[in-house]
């Protein structure tokens, strides 16, 4: 577990060919850790049929509507997604 509640993070901009739980509209977006959950089997590996998928900490990440939808976002809305640790980067390490 690398992140704590309130930490600012950014989602990876990766575009892998396999199952991946960062929707396109959330790629390379800034968010805030809203909750830290248990380690769950990584969905990417489960979808590929891995009999022993790696366990990774799962986070609820909060994104302001304006960050996710730069054009036409509604005011005062927050979108929450469940994201695995390997999907995230510390916001400070990014340009």
């Amino acid at each position, binding site marked *: 577990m690398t992140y704590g509640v309130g930490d600012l993070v950014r989602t990876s901009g990766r575009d892998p060919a396999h199952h991946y*739980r960062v*929707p396109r*509209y959330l790629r390379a977006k800034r968010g805030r850790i809203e*909750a830290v*959950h*248990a380690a*769950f089997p990584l*969905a990417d590996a489960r979808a590929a049929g891995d009999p022993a998928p790696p366990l990774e900490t*799962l986070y*609820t990440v909060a994104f302001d*509507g304006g960050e*996710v*939808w730069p054009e036409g*976002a*509604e*005011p*005062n*809305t*927050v*979108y*929450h*997604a*469940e994201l695995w640790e390997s999907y995230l980067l510390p916001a400070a390490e990014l340009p």
Partner: protein
Amino acid sequence: MSEHGHDHPHDHGSPAAVMTARVNALIGALEARGVAADADVTAVIERFLAAAGPQNGARIVARAWVDPTFRALLLADANAAIAALGLDMSHWAPVELRVVENTAHVHNIVVCTLCSCYPIALLGPAPQWYKSEAYRSRVVREPRAVLREFGVALADDIEVRVWDSTAELRYLVLPRRPADSDGWDEARLMQGVTRDALIGAAR
């Protein structure tokens, strides 16, 4: 001729047909190995659905409205709180339940953008609109517009929080207690709690 080179009247290309074929193959394998019969599988599903319905969610909400200790536990560790009411999320695999609370300044609404993840044990089978592509794609981008179509008009100073459910986490909304309900007991409070309010499509 169909695109894969033979004529046939059956629909084996749709997601539902693929799923039906998989389920039938799985049941067939269980029967062939003597693990379970088709009737056993049906009985398990019927037993589950008989106990699953929005009355469970309403019971949770009514208890939270009258019992501050339960409410605090519900918001901190919902799985533990509902276990105290004899309810359980973990019928097939461990699932974390999270309860999010509406306030004068916050409205919560739940979606599953990937498919139709939903707390079936607490609300019964999901309504058709919850599974529709229109709801799933629009509510993440324009939740206020979607809520207006449900008859919920929210002032801009009320924060709208959208929660995207997954196989790992399910959400239940804790609505606000009706303003005129002082002295009501749990049974009476339960009657006013709708399924849509527990999803966040009503306020």
